[in-house]
C-alpha cells in the first residue's frame, strides 16, 4: 500500500468522524473565504481596483464638489494621459428604496474605464442622444429595463430648470470586465445634465485621471494636489485602490471586528482538528507499532500522521473556500459594496498557510507520541 493509500485508509477508518470534522473545518474556511478578502481590502491589498488610475476629490469633503475647470488644468499636467470626470446624480427611482448609483459622465469616461464593457454602437448612441442613459446589467435585470425604456428620476440634489422629474432614455446595458465594476450603476450624459440642472453648473464630484507610462502614480498625485494647494478648491488625489480603501476605513474599525471573528474561528478550528487527530491516533498507536514492526521507519509513521492531519484540513478547506466564492458571487448581485471583493491570490495564499499551520499543529501531539512509542508495550495490547 502506498503512502497515499495509507493516509486515505486512515481517514476512512471512521468516516463519520472524518466527515463531521471536515464539516467543522469547512465552516471555518467558509468564514475565512468570506472575510479574508474584506480584510485584504482594509489592509490596502485589494485585488481588482486600478492602481494606476487616479481619483481627484475635494480635499475638504467627500460629498462636496470640484469645479470642472480643474479637469482641464489636470489634463495639461505632464505625466497625465487622459482625464474624465463624474458627478453624483442621486435622485430617487420608483418608490425611493432603489438606491443604485447614478452618475453624470462625459463621453471621455468610458475610454478611461475599459472594464465597463459597453458596445461601440451604444457609445455612439449615447453621444448623440442627449437624454441617453447606460444601465448596469444587474439593475436592468432587477427592474426589467431594456433599450428604449424611459427612466424617470425624482431629484434630491439636482433640481432641473423646470423643477420636475428628470427623464432619461435607456440606450444600452453595460457588463463588467472584472468584479470591481458596479453593475447596479447607471450613467447619464454630463452635457445634458449640466445644461439642465437648476444650480451648480460646472460642478463635478470626482475627476478621473490616467497616469502616463514612465511616471509613477505617487508623483502625479503630488503634482495634481500641489497645483491646487492654497486655493479655495484644494484637491485630494488618490489611486482608485487607496480611494476604495478610504471608503472602507470610514466604516470604523471593521478590521478589528473581522480579526475577532477570524481569530475565534481559527482558534476553534485548530482545537477541533487537533482533537480529532489526537483521538484517532490514540486508538491507533498499536497499529503504528505493527507498521514499525513491519519495518516502517519512525519518520515514515510520523509523516503518515502529518499527512492525515493535513489531508483532513485540506478536505474541509476546499469545499469551504468554494462555498465562500459562491456566496460572495451571490452577495455581489445584491450588495454593491461587495464589488471588487473576490477570493484572489492573497486570500488563497493565506488559506494555504492556514491549512499548513493547523494541519501541522494538530499533528504535533501524536507525532511526539510516536517518537516515544514503545513497540513492545503497544504490541502487547493487541
Amino acid at each position, binding site marked *: 500500500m502506498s503512502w497515499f493509500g495509507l493516509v486515505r485508509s486512515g481517514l476512512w477508518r471512521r468516516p463519520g468522524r472524518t466527515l463531521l470534522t471536515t464539516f467543522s473545518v469547512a465552516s471555518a474556511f467558509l468564514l475565512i473565504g468570506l472575510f479574508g478578502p474584506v480584510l485584504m481590502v482594509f489592509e490596502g491589498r485589494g485585488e481588482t481596483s486600478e492602481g494606476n488610475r487616479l481619483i481627484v476629490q475635494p480635499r475638504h469633503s467627500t*460629498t462636496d464638489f470640484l469645479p470642472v475647470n480643474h479637469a482641464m488644468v489636470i489634463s495639461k499636467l505632464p505625466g497625465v494621459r487622459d482625464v474624465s470626470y463624474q458627478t453624483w446624480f442621486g435622485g430617487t427611482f420608483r418608490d425611493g428604496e432603489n438606491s443604485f448609483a447614478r452618475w453624470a459622465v462625459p463621453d471621455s469616461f468610458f475610454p478611461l474605464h475599459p472594464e465597463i464593457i459597453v458596445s461601440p454602437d451604444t457609445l455612439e448612441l449615447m453621444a448623440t442622444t442627449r437624454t441617453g442613459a447606460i444601465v448596469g446589467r444587474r439593475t436592468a435585470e432587477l427592474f426589467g429595463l431594456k433599450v428604449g425604456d424611459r427612466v424617470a428620476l425624482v431629484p434630491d440634489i439636482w433640481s432641473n430648470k423646470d423643477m420636475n422629474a428628470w427623464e432619461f432614455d435607456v440606450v444600452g446595458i453595460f457588463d463588467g470586465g472584472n468584479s470591481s465594476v458596479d453593475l447596479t450603476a447607471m450613467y447619464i450624459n454630463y452635457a445634458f445634465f449640466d445644461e439642465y440642472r437648476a444650480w451648480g453648473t460646472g460642478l463635478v464630484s470626482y475627476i478621473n485621471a490616467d497616469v502616463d507610462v514612465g511616471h509613477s502614480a505617487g508623483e502625479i498625485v503630488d503634482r495634481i494636489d500641489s497645483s491646487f494647494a492654497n486655493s*479655495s478648491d484644494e484637491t485630494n488625489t488618490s489611486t482608485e485602490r487607496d480611494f476604495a480603501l478610504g471608503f472602507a476605513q470610514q466604516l470604523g474599525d471593521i478590521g478589528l471586528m473581522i480579526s475577532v471573528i477570524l481569530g475565534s474561528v481559527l482558534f476553534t478550528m485548530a482545537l477541533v482538528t487537533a482533537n480529532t487527530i489526537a483521538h484517532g491516533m490514540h486508538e491507533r498507536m498499536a497499529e503504528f507499532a505493527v507498521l514499525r514492526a513491519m519495518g516502517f521507519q519512525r519518520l515514515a509513521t510520523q509523516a503518515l500522521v502529518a499527512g492525515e492531519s493535513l489531508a483532513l484540513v485540506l478536505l474541509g478547506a476546499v469545499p469551504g473556500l468554494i462555498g465562500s466564492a459562491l456566496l460572495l458571487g451571490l452577495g455581489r448581485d445584491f450588495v454593491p459594496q461587495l464589488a471588487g471583493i473576490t477570493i484572489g491570490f492573497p486570500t488563497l495564499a493565506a488559506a494555504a498557510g492556514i491549512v499548513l499551520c493547523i494541519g501541522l499543529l494538530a499533528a504535533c501531539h501524536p507525532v511526539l507520541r510516536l517518537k516515544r512509542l514503545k513497540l513492545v508495550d503497544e504490541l502487547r495490547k493487541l
Partner: protein
Amino acid sequence: MFRRIVRVALINVSTLRTRLGSSAVVVVGIAGVVFVLTALFAMANGLRETMQSSGEADRVLLLGKGSRSEINGSITRDQAAIIAGLPGISATRALDGGNKPLVSPEIYLTVNLSRRDDHNRAGLPLRGVSEAALRVRPEVSITQGRLSTAGQFEVIVGEAAARTFEGLQVGDHISLKGVTFTVVGHFGAYGRATESEAWLDVNVMANAFNRATMNTIRARLDSPQSLDVVTAAILGDKRLANTVFRESDFYNEQAESSTRLMTIVGITVGIIMSFGAIATALNSLYAAVSTRTREIAILRAIGFSATPIVISVLIEAMLMALIGGVLGAAMGWMIFDGIDMTSIGGAYSQVAFRFSVQPELLFAGVLLSLVIGFIGGLLPAVRAARLSVVDGLKSVA
C-alpha cells in the same frame, strides 16, 4: 423514572472527566460562536441605541423636495420663512412680547478631517446654524469654552467629534476651503448623534462653502400629534415641496439602514459558526457514546429503559453547551461592553457610539448555545438508545 434519569445523568457527568479533551473542544467551539455573535450584535446595538436616542417625537425635519437625507436638497430662505409660520409649529414668547418660532434652518455638509486613532481622513458633519438651533434642541449645552459668535469664523464641536478627530480641542484652528476656523467651545448632547457634529454660524458657512440655500430645517411641534397638521399645510402651499420626517422616525430609519449590514453579517456568521459547532458537538458526543457502549449496555441489561439514557446524553450535551454559552457571553460582555467606536452614520459622516451588551443579548447567546447542544446531542442520544445490549456487553471497553 425521574430518579433513574437523574442517576444516569449523574453517572454520565461524573465520567466527563475522562473525556475532558473532546468535551473542552465542544465548550470552546460553542463559546467561540457566542463570543463572536455577542461582539457583532453589541456593535449593531450600540449604533442603533445612539441613533434611536437622537430623535424626539415632537420635532420634525423638513428636507428639500424628494430628499431623504440632510445632506441633499435645497430650501430657499423664503421657503424657510414660510415654514416658520405654518400651523402646528411651536413658538416661544420672546422678551419683547412677540413670538419666536422654534424653527432652525440649517446647512449640513460633511468635511474630511483626520481621525485620531488611525490618522485616516473621515467625514465630520458640519452644521451651519443660527441661535434658533439651541432653542429647538434643549439637550445641547456647552461643556467647555463658549458658544460661537454670529458672523465669526468660529466653530463649536460636539464632545464625541472632539474625541474622534484630531485638532478639535478648544483653541485649535481648522482650515477648510481656504478659510481658517477657530474651535471656541465643546458641546454635549447626552450621547446623541448630535455630539458627533460641529456647528458654526449659518451665514459664515453659506459664504465659505458657496451655498445659496439651506439643506435642512429642524422645528419643534406644538405636540407630537401636530405632524399631520404640518404635513397638510406643506401639501396645501404651492411654494413648498418639502419632505417631512418626524425626527424620531428619521433617526430610527437611519438606525435601521446603518445597522442592516452589521445584522446581515452577524446572522451569516452566526449560522455558519453554529453549523460548525454542531458538527463538533456531534463528533464529540458520538465518541462519548461509543466509549460508554458497555456501560450503557449494562444499564439496559439491569432494567433501565432507553429514555433515561437518551436524556442523559442530551443533558451532557446541553451542559457542555451551557458552559460554553455562558463563557462566550461573559467574555463578550467583559471585553466589548462600553467600547467606544465610530462608524458611518449617514452621508459619509462619522458617528460615535458605544458597544452595548444588553441582558437580552447575553440571554439570546446562551439560548443559542443550548439549541446547538440539543441538536448536537440528539443523534448520538438516539444511537445510544438503539445500541444492542448483547453487542454492547460483548464489546470490551
